[in-house]
């Protein structure tokens, strides 16, 4: 027992086991009634799981800002939108291939994050949250009503099918999309964990704990916050591109403030600043937000009296209420419930034990 438990405590081994399990999931024909509509290798189920994985990756990228550096940004959706829309526009309107478009989208998002972060980080704390929210709204309006022939307006825009490689096209290849989503999650996790273990990551955690003290020590918090902001933005843009492939088109919903708020909900739900917190939160939120929509049509709910039925058919109501309850009763999130330490605590004393 103790030996197994000790091995399980080794982070990289635990990660390896979890990711390997996720990797082999599409080979399984196991069916879990009540949880998924069909066996695990059914395209519908894989699609749902892939969206969960993308959300988990996005949640980690957000946690780098929120949980690790203590920066509350409400503009994270900007970069998801950037990755998604720059790729779509380049493919559909400029006739580029998918890969170069995606690469350009990443570079554009990086540049945008440096400009936006450079400006917005001049105000600290809550002011930063308000400013990024305003920028996010500007991007959202630009996408929805700025240039409908370019962005598709409220409807969004289908990605030109001929640009998508055959291996990613069609229902039969959903497993490939699932693996791409998983690869994205792994990249995000490794990037954020790797950064957390490095010296800049240590400074970021110090900023999270006490920014003034970091300043007194002679370091410039601004630069480290900008670094976190830029890396998180590039990861978010990557997530936007993967999400685009999953959906087969760009959707303006990722640009809305509700999308960014849902990233915050995921991170807090799972446990901010905890190694597995954002991943757990992203998976749970991704599953809940997709299944609650399905659940709302279920016979068990439509049989309820109207007073109960109405609110229960609103996924956002359930998630918002659950979020308030988590904040109240489980400040460490789901991961915190199960005794997970914050990464700061891990490095403080956990490594020696």
């Amino acid at each position, binding site marked *: 027992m103790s030996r197994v438990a000790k091995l399980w405590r080794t982070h990289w081994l635990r990660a390896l086991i979890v990711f390997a399990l996720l990797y082999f999931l599409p080979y399984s024909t196991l069916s879990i009634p009540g949880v998924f509509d069909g066996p695990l290798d059914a395209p519908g189920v894989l699609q749902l799981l892939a969206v969960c994985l993308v959300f988990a990756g996005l949640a980690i990228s957000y946690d780098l800002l929120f949980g690790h550096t203590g920066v509350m940004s409400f503009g994270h959706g900007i970069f998801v939108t950037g990755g998604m829309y720059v790729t779509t526009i380049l493919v559909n309107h400029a006739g580029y291939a998918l890969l170069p478009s995606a690469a350009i989208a990443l570079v554009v998002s990086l540049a945008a994050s440096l400009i936006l972060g450079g400006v*917005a980080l001049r*105000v600290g704390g809550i002011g930063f949250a308000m*400013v990024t929210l305003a920028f996010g709204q*500007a991007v959202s309006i630009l996408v929805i009503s700025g240039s409908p022939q370019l962005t598709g307006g409220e409807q969004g825009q289908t990605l030109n099918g001929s640009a998508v490689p055959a291996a990613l096209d069609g229902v039969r290849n959903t497993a490939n999309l699932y693996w791409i989503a998983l690869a994205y999650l792994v990249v995000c996790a490794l990037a954020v964990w790797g950064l957390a273990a490095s010296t800049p990551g240590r400074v970021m955690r110090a900023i999270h704990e006490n920014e003034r003290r970091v300043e007194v020590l002679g370091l410039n918090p601004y630069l480290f916050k900008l670094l976190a902001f830029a890396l998180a933005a590039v990861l978010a843009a990557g997530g936007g591109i993967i999400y685009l492939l999953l959906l087969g088109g760009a959707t303006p919903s990722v640009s809305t403030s509700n999308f960014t708020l849902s990233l915050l909900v995921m991170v807090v739900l799972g446990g901010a600043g905890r190694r597995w917190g954002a991943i757990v939160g992203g998976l749970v939120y991704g599953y809940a937000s997709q299944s609650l929509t399905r659940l709302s049509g279920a016979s068990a709910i439509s049989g309820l009296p109207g007073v109960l039925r109405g609110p229960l058919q609103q996924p956002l109501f359930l998630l918002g209420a659950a*979020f308030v309850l988590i*904040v109240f009763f489980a400040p460490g999130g789901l991961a915190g419930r199960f005794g997970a330490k914050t990464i700061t605590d891990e490095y403080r004393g956990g490594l020696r034990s």
Partner: protein
Amino acid sequence: MTTVILLTATGLGLAALYFLVASGLSLIFGLMDVLNFAHGAFVSVGGYVGWTVADHLSGTIGLFGALLAGIAAGAAIAAGTELAVIRPLYGRPLDQVLATVGLGLAIPALLQAIWGADSRTWLVPGWLAGTVDIAGARVPSVRFLLIGIAVALLVGLRLLLGRTRAGLIVRAGVEDRAMVTALGIDVRRANSAVFALGGAAAGLAGVLYGLYQGSVSPGDGTSLLIFAFVVVVLGGAGSITGTALAAVAVGLVQQYADYASASLGDESVVILLAAVLLLRRRNLQGRPA
């Protein structure tokens, strides 16, 4: 010329709405350091409650009933939020903000569950539905109602903050809450009062936004909230006059830019915000950063 008058009147009407939302937001943030993401939800609640009243009692009585009901609903839900959600989380400022985020998501969804996702048409009484002739420009009368109410609120708040003991406590609390507490004054009561007051203004804004648009929809409050945030950042938290000036600036810039090119209005507000942030080396409280 007529275009300029019309744009200015519309811009000032919008500014009035922004001021109603932002003044409460600014006082709450200044006094309690709580960025209230549920404020937009208060606006929506006020709007829907007001719409329901106006729907049952039509005409002028309905209008005044709606205004009063909106104020009452906004104050009630804000006071309830402060009591049930904000107060237990005292000393956990981040969690306070997060809880309001949760409410900001849940309440509009609840409104949507009750009143449906589609916008509801708001019938304005006849004397308010017309236009007023100013130098040849036909300005909708509702704009003047908005501006009048906002000016009244500005004057009222200035008097309340400047001339009463309660206002003194709030102003002192904005400056240094710990010191006020140390002097033996219970700031928590001021917190409740400011929350209820801000909620009342937000509920009123919800009703007025309904009149302004001629309809109410669940997302109204959230869209107003974002510009109200911009107004708070520009005006400085806790400063009523600053909030009013910033609201006028944002409303006018938005309208003029919108006239130049559709959808440029919202972008220009964000550009204004970025420019001010770049040029000003001060934090939200107006103290050097």
